[in-house]
């Protein structure tokens, strides 16, 4: 599995280079790669369904317990198969859809990286590795949502998605670390038998809350749901892939994966039920007023994600069965419908439902595909969506206390989903034809083949569910519930109450559809107060953060060099003052104190030069005087036998004077700008710094100066470093990594200088 992921990352990195020469066939070429992954994992199907769990471990940071441990069981295989199958379709589809876009090569890089990360995420058993893949999917999602980065809305939506899911990711990391603290291991599987210990732990509530914040933000659960509809700014293949079929299910996957470690308590189950129901209803109700095909689908996706959370919250055997079927069914039909929406957009130039109609003759194949997927989404027999919805209702019916309310909520939400299906899957094709921005025609092969296959697969799964997914059901349930299910999937359960509910849902959906025209204007006028909208909370938080940043920048980075220097010096002194006083008065050995004639002369010259710097009335004079101070320092180094330091000081001083002279030309005529008060303040600070430095030096020299390092470097410079110049050997060998860090900083600083000066040059040119 590690090798497959490695192949994935390498292939993604190679995609931009392969795109140019094979532009016309790239859809096929790129689709072969997820297909290869799909087939490799499908070949394990029999093994996994037979009860085997495949583990594989690659050392990463063994000393920290962080390894790339992969675990292939029923649950992860289900997700991997969904990811790679939809991936194949989307890669092929994008070959035609993205054709002509200026950055298609980049698109394949991002989406390839995403797919590989997503596969890694669902395979990982190690929490830290899982977190890394989790964040990778957030980052690639950011790049893909902001793919049309010339649009402000795209950039905004991308940032929003990144901040929400990234922030949730941090909460998740904290939760996982707490969890790992209990078992002293990062392997999720090591916690499987520790369920009792975990739920007794004092930090259990904290773990649950943090992990669920992470999962909910990723899976766009209420109140984090707002980023998902905005993410529809992404190109349609991305919406189909990331934002309906795969990435948004990562949170759901994590909840399922951790269910039998953290589950079974009222806190866990009830939170899931409440949040799931809220999301299910919010998504469905908000869908009512939408006019954009993709937005309609996005809100219905929200609703489905809520339903999946709700099912995990119910947590009964039947609910887990419903979870599994609904998950697979939704990925198939929603992926298809998103791609159909993309096709409509691509071939007609609009995604507005009101403008689309009567396209059945122009796009017959797309129409058939859409119809098949829509039947599945509406829950019509004999498609897999029908089984999904039936089991959802059946599992809710089992509940005692919450049952009636949840049932009503589910029927209303599903009714609204039926309405969405009518709008997306049927309205554009039937009724009277309307003029569209582009003359409509059938999509190319690459764009209808994949969706059609997915839709047909949905039909086949409905017809013979046991043969196609039954084997995985037990294994997945085992991963979620840790008990054998022994349940079979059946298409037909006979005439019962559940079937009646399905009919009611359909009728309700038709009713909503019929009423929509009448109530739409009124519904669109409804404005929620900002307090009731989580997206407004996000805006307020973001704006608050920005103004805080602006405020502190205005205070700390005011653009005056003199204030920078004052701030730095005063802060340093304030921080060092406490330990300095705590250390008491330094024991100065006056007896050892001696000064030679040379040193006295140097000091005198330095003092005179400093005085000249302060009092001079010409910049050139001041600069030369500063240079004299520097050179005197260099001579001092020579006297104390540090030729390397002296050499460097001389070179630096020379260059500094040259630089100063260059700047000098630019400056206005020298006048005295600062008032007396300022000069007194500066003099005080300068004196304080001088006293402070003197105290520091006295303290340092009062201590024991004989360190082991000195003798070690002196003794080992030649045998180990092969050099007699200890200073240089330290720089390039013993402590070379420090030097490497320093020269990197220098290079970055040079880029900064370059940018600053370049900016000014450019401005002048304009």
């Amino acid at each position, binding site marked *: 599995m590690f090798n497959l992921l490695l192949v994935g990352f390498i292939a993604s990195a190679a995609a931009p280079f392969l795109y140019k020469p094979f532009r016309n066939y790239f859809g096929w070429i790129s689709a072969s790669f997820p297909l290869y992954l799909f087939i490799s994992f499908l070949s394990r199907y029999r093994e996994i369904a037979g009860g085997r769990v495949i583990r594989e471990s690659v050392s990463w940071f063994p000393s920290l317990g962080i390894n790339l441990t992969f675990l292939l069981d029923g649950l992860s295989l289900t997700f991997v198969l969904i990811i790679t199958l939809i991936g194949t379709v989307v890669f092929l589809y994008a070959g035609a859809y993205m054709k002509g876009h200026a950055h298609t090569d980049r698109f394949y890089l991002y989406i390839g990286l995403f797919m590989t990360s997503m596969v890694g995420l669902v395979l990982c058993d190690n929490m830290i590795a899982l977190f890394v893949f989790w964040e990778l999917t957030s980052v690639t999602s950011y790049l893909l949502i902001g793919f049309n980065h010339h649009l402000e809305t795209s950039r905004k939506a991308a940032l929003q998605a990144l901040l929400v899911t990234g922030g949730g990711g941090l909460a998740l990391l904290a939760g996982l670390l707490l969890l790992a603290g209990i078992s002293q291991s990062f392997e999720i599987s090591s916690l499987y038998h520790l369920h009792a210990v975990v739920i007794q732990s004092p930090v259990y509530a904290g773990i649950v809350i943090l992990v669920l914040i992470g999962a909910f933000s990723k899976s766009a659960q209420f109140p984090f749901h707002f980023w998902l509809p905005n993410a529809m700014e992404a190109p349609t293949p991305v919406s189909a892939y990331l934002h309906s079929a795969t990435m948004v299910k990562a949170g759901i996957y994590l909840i399922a994966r951790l269910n039998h470690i953290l589950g079974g308590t009222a806190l866990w189950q009830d939170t899931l039920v409440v949040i799931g129901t809220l999301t299910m209803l919010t998504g469905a109700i908000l869908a009512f007023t939408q006019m954009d095909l993709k937005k309609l689908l996005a809100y219905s996706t929200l609703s489905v994600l809520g339903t999946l959370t709700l099912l995990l919250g119910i947590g009964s055997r039947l609910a887990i069965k419903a979870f599994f079927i609904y998950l697979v069914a939704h990925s198939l039909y929603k992926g298809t419908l998103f791609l159909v929406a993309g096709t409509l957009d691509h071939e007609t130039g609009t995604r507005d439902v009101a403008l689309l109609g009567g396209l059945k003759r122009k796009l017959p194949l797309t129409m058939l595909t859409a119809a098949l997927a829509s039947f599945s989404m509406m829950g019509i027999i004999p498609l897999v969506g029908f089984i999904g919805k039936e089991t959802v209702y059946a599992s809710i019916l089992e509940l005692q206390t919450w049952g009636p309310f949840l049932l009503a909520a589910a029927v209303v939400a599903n009714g609204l989903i039926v309405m969405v299906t009518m709008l997306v899957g049927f309205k554009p094709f039937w009724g009277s034809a309307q003029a569209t921005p582009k003359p409509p025609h059938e999509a190319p092969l690459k764009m209808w083949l994949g969706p059609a296959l997915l839709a047909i697969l949905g039909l086949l799964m409905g017809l013979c569910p046991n043969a196609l997914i039954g084997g995985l059901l037990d294994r997945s349930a085992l991963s979620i519930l840790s008990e054998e299910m022994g349940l079979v999937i059946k298409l037909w359960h006979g005439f019962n109450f559940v079937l009646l509910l399905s009919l009611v849902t359909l009728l309700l959906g038709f009713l909503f559809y019929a009423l929509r025209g009448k109530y739409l204007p009124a519904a669109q006028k409804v404005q929620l107060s900002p307090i009731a909208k989580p997206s407004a909370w996000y805006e307020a938080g973001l704006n608050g953060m920005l103004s805080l940043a602006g405020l502190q920048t205005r205070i700390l980075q005011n653009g005056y060099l003199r204030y920078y220097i004052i701030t730095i010096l005063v802060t340093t002194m304030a921080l060092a003052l406490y330990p300095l006083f705590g250390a008491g008065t330094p024991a100065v050995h006056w007896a050892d104190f001696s000064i030679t004639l040379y040193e006295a002369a140097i000091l005198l010259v330095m003092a005179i030069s400093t005085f000249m710097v302060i009092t001079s009335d010409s910049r050139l004079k001041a600069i030369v005087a500063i240079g004299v101070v520097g050179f005197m320092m260099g001579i001092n180094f020579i006297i104390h036998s540090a030729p390397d330091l002296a050499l460097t000081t001389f070179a630096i001083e020379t260059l500094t004077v040259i630089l100063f002279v260059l700047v000098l030309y630019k400056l206005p005529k020298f006048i005295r700008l600062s008032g007396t008060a300022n000069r007194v303040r500066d003099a005080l600070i300068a004196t304080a710094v001088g006293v402070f430095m003197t105290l520091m030096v006295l303290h340092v020299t009062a201590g024991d100066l004989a360190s082991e390092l000195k003798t070690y470097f002196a003794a080992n410079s030649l045998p180990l470093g092969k050099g007699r110049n200890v200073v*240089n050997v330290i720089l390039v060998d013993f402590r070379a990594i420090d030097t490497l860090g320093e020269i990197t900083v220098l290079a970055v600083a040079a880029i900064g200088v370059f940018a600053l000066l370049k900016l000014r040059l450019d401005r002048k040119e304009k």
Partner: protein
Amino acid sequence: MFSIILSTASKYLLPLLLIFSFFLLLRGHNEPGGGFVGGLVAAAAYALYFIANGVEEAKKLLKAEPIKIIAAGLLVALVSTLPALLAGRDFMSGLWLEPQFPVIGKVGTPLLFDAGVFLLVLGIAVKIIFSLAEEDKR
């Protein structure tokens, strides 16, 4: 301000100073010197040439973009860390070739690393001087 004496002198001083800077780089391991100070001296050599002949001439003489010299320096320093990794030693352990070369002396990864420092320092100093000088011209 153009001085024919300085201009003529700089033509002869530049190669001498550059040779001196290489000398500093190579002797650095055993005697005072090293990549940092060598780079500074080389930069000073170009600075002298620029003062005498103007920034355009100096740029023409340098040929490469200073920012590329910086990048090359950083790259050389990084590459010098690779042989130790490939040999299975700890990151950045110094590896030396056995034979002594004439003029250059001992050759090993620390020398390569120092050469990277040399290039980087040269590039940065020259970059800043040239940038300020160009700014000045406008």
